[in-house]
């Protein structure tokens, strides 16, 4: 690494592509890059509890190989790649030879023989796994888990949880422990913690990224995706793992990246879900309003009337818990106390629903999907809040993506519709509250148009133009020596 220390050069100012260029040009050492991230894990993880397993020796060995030139030629056609970059994996992604607990005592001693497909693809592309990341128990319980790992702490507010279920992924990215991380999203589990921790969360179209080898919550809803610092990071990660690109010609991956990083080809028709903005907490309405107004630089804004978010929440509740109860039925019967109290309530609820309840919920899901499909005949993009509040200590108690209460508009109700329909979503930081807390917007695209959605999100990111350093919590920045703009909040 030349000049400044690795910490200052690489994080938070440089994204995955930038770091890739530094590594491949020899301007930065992979070992130093990995050491900088391990250093932040050492300093911050005892407080934030983002990591369950840290792969220090393995990561340093891989980095040394990269620096020795063994891995330098990896990646396609000289384009930026994830080769040599330290990534984190949510602990429900199976990792060969590495304990995979999903933050549950039910899997406390489970060490898989194989990698999840996403892990395998990223490792084959040269990424360096540096940590397995904490999460809500089995991606369904609340943040207080069953004792496998510590309680996750939001780096923006030590009294609050990070949001779930991919909370460890969001914390680790937000505080620079990893450059990017995988997440899984069944009802909002990527988007919610991404929003509360001020990072980008990308839930691709359902089934675009394989869920093979991810500890399941609900087979018909589970979606794999990413938490990262920028939309470009998400594009790079998707290019390595999009199942549609795996069998395509090698240059197709580069074409995808080139296409997704171009400006949208025309003025976007943007549907603004005004009713969702109206139910947000007062403190976040103003930054949302400003962010929406700014979008007129890239599109024509019009109000969109969404199908019932309440009905989507109902579908999610019945389908997710019914399927999860089937996944864990044997363990639930033989040893129910192995599960934390929060998740056990959800699994027990799932075991009470009848087959008719489940089928009717799936029928309602089909109706919601048809309604949404019609909306995307009128709009290229729909925007609405990721969450209706800033971090709250109580908001994620009790289950999937939000409080288990029908009036829980601050939590899961914002995200559940798009889980039910399978549309791709990017949750993108779009502003700050008066107390300097980040707020995030969901940008939703038509199913399977992930590249177009990422184009639009990238354009919005440029319009909002939030300084990267401002998206690092002040105390984390001070702890890690990050130089950034003057902050007003603590």
């Amino acid at each position, binding site marked *: 690494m030349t000049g400044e220390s690795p910490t200052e050069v690489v994080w938070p100012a440089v994204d995955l592509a930038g770091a890739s260029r530094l590594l491949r040009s020899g301007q930065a050492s992979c070992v130093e890059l990995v050491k900088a991230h391990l250093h932040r894990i050492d300093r911050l993880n005892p407080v934030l509890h983002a990591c369950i397993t840290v792969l220090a020796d393995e990561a340093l060995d891989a980095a040394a190989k990269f620096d020795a030139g063994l891995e330098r030629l990896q990646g396609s056609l000289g384009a930026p790649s994830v080769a040599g970059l330290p990534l984190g994996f949510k602990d429900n992604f199976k990792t060969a030879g590495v304990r995979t607990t999903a933050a549950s005592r039910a899997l406390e001693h489970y060490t898989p023989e194989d990698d999840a497909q996403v892990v395998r693809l990223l490792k084959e592309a040269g990424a360096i796994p540096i940590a397995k990341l904490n999460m809500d128990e089995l991606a369904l319980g609340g943040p207080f888990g069953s004792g496998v790992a510590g309680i996750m702490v939001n780096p923006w507010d030590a009294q609050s949880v990070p949001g779930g279920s991919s909370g460890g992924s969001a914390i680790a990215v937000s505080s620079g422990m990893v450059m990017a991380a995988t997440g899984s999203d069944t009802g909002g589990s990527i988007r919610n913690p991404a929003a509360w921790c001020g990072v980008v969360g990308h839930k691709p179209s359902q089934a675009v990224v394989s869920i093979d080898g991810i500890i399941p919550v609900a087979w018909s809803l589970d979606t794999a995706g990413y938490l990262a610092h920028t939309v470009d990071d998400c594009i790079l990660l998707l290019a390595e793992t999009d199942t549609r690109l795996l069998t395509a010609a090698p240059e197709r991956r580069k074409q995808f990246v080139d296409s997704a990083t171009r400006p949208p080809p025309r003025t976007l028709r943007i549907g603004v879900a005004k009713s969702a903005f109206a139910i947000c907490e007062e403190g976040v309405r103003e930054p949302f309003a400003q962010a929406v107004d700014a979008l007129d630089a890239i599109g024509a804004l019009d109000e969109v009337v969404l199908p019932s978010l309440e009905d989507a929440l109902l579908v999610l509740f019945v389908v997710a818990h019914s399927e999860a109860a089937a996944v864990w039925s044997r363990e639930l019967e033989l040893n129910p106390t192995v599960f934390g109290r929060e998740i056990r309530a*959800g699994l027990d609820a799932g075991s009470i629903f009848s087959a008719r*309840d489940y089928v009717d919920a799936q029928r309602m899901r*089909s109706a919601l999907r048809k309604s949404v499909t019609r909306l995307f005949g009128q709009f290229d993009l729909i925007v609405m809040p990721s969450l209706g509040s800033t971090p709250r200590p109580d908001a994620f108690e*009790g289950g999937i993506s939000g409080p288990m209460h029908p009036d829980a508009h601050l939590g899961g109700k914002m995200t559940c519709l798009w889980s039910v329909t*399978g549309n791709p979503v990017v949750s993108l930081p779009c502003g700050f509250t008066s107390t300097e807390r980040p707020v995030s917007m969901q940008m939703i695209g038509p199913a399977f148009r992930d590249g177009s959605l990422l184009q639009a999100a990238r354009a919005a990111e440029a319009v909002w133009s939030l300084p990267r350093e401002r998206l690092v919590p002040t105390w984390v920045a001070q702890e890690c020596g990050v130089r950034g703009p003057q902050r007003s909040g603590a």
Partner: protein
Amino acid sequence: MSDSAFTWRDLAKEKFGEDIDRLAAINAIAPMMDWVMGRLEELRKESALNMSPAVPLAPGSDDEMFGPESA
């Protein structure tokens, strides 16, 4: 078992018997359960679901709009 004959509370009692801890845990989410079961019944009475497919479909399999990536 008829849906109308039993409430979810009856089913919980039948399923979890004397396990006070499990009954207490599920009772903690009673407002959500009441709302979900009530809304499902409403939709059935409205025949709102009659025209919808009875099997879960992957996105893209139930309409003509979803196509290959075009970005």
